[in-house]
């Protein structure tokens, strides 16, 4: 059993208009362990009001990815990974961000970012999230959100790994490994989730997963380039001028 993955982050018009770089970051890949393959996907969105949210997102994704691959290689079985492990990854990633903040004479909150994470193997999957954006899991034709985007009181507020009470807003969920997984930051959430029905919009996810399944090779560079062009399309920009990240994984064989 293998995973086919594709991923892209694009900078939103809100940032390009001001000559800024994007503040989304992601890291996704697969690792082989004896006869099983694991998908690991992490995405983070740096807070728009911060100077270094984009850097915070990068540190968070890189350190989480390294810790997760390390532990998965050690144990080779996701049922051995507990909520406590997830909390400890998140805490050390936050420490890594704090260390860089100190080094540059900045505050931790200057590096504020959200976190989305998915690890999936043959049987089990683990998901975690702080803040908004969402993870959608699919099996056959059913799509469901693992966590709903967590917002504060107002549309422009959410929770970050750099918050004082970050563990209170860390959500972790274990379940049977799905066939399809999508992680996306808040720049896409208004387009792909129906807020009135509180569910994922199948019309968005189904064609994307189908196209990835039909794609001939894993990591075929043409597909992520197409995904990037897709995320830059005018009809998408008209609905959301924020940075957008989409990580997709489908199970094959």
């Amino acid at each position: 059993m293998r995973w086919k993955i594709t991923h892209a982050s694009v900078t939103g018009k809100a940032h390009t208009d001001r000559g800024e770089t994007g503040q989304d970051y992601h890291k996704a890949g697969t690792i082989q362990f004896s006869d099983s393959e694991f998908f690991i996907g992490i995405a983070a969105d740096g807070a728009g009001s911060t100077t270094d949210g984009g850097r915070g997102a990068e540190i968070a994704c890189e350190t989480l990815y390294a810790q997760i691959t390390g532990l998965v290689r050690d144990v080779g079985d996701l049922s051995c990974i507990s909520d406590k492990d997830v909390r400890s990854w998140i805490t050390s990633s936050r420490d890594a961000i704090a260390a860089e903040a100190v080094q540059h004479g900045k505050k931790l909150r200057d590096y504020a970012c959200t976190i989305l994470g998915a690890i999936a193997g043959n049987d089990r999957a683990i998901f975690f999230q702080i803040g908004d954006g969402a993870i959608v899991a699919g099996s056959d034709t059913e799509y469901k959100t693992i966590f709903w985007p967590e917002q504060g009181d107002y549309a422009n507020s959410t929770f970050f790994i750099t918050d004082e009470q970050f563990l209170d807003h860390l959500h972790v969920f274990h379940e049977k490994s799905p066939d399809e997984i999508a992680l996306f930051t808040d720049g896409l959430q208004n387009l792909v989730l129906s807020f009135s029905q509180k569910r994922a919009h199948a019309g968005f996810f189904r064609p994307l997963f189908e196209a990835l399944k039909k794609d001939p090779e894993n990591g075929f560079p043409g597909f992520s380039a197409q995904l990037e062009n897709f995320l830059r399309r005018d009809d998408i920009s008209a609905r959301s001028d924020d940075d957008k990240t989409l990580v997709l994984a489908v199970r094959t064989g």
Partner: protein
Amino acid sequence: MNNDTNITLPDQQPLGAVTFAENPEPRCPCLLLLDTSGSMAGQAITELNNGIREFYNELQNDSLAIKRVEVALISFGPVRVISEFNTAECFFDPELVAVGDTPMGEAIRKGIEMIKNRKEQYRANGISFYRPWIFLITDGEPTDEWQSAAAMVREGENAKSFAFFAIGVHKADMKILKQISVREPVKLQGLKFREFFQWLSNSMKSASRSNPGDRIALASPIGWSEI
């Protein structure tokens, strides 16, 4: 750039079938409390009407603001709800007339009530929203009981339920405005309503674009206020 023919894609438009969820846009509510008492008669009320017209015009010409910014109008002298919260598409020309005294306390209480109801409607319909803004514009002093309204403003600001701004025109009693508004009241330069509304529409446009984590910073009121 014709050197990419060595890659043949399985389908030129594999992502063509993707559709988006029909989702209501987040709302950015703005309430204007407008003094239309007798003292506003003449050029002041004309300039105010022109300013409001311009304000709606600006919002209508912005693709995101027209879907997200909701404006409500209350005039006082006597207190009247000119417009409930609506996006700029639903603009009608209010043609305010200056008459009567200045029941500012009642207008503020009515306005805060309207904000509260609107938020409940948003929540019931799963629509997310930004912190509402209230702008009080007056050229006089309250002729009714205003202390309870001032307490409601303080309470609302503390709870971050809304942001309240007071603008004084001409001989407005700035001392009372200071007691009503937690934020420092601003004095309008002459009758620069047009400049004020231009500034307000710019501020609303940028607020309605703000994304999670953005702090909404108001531009400095240069060009229409007395510093």
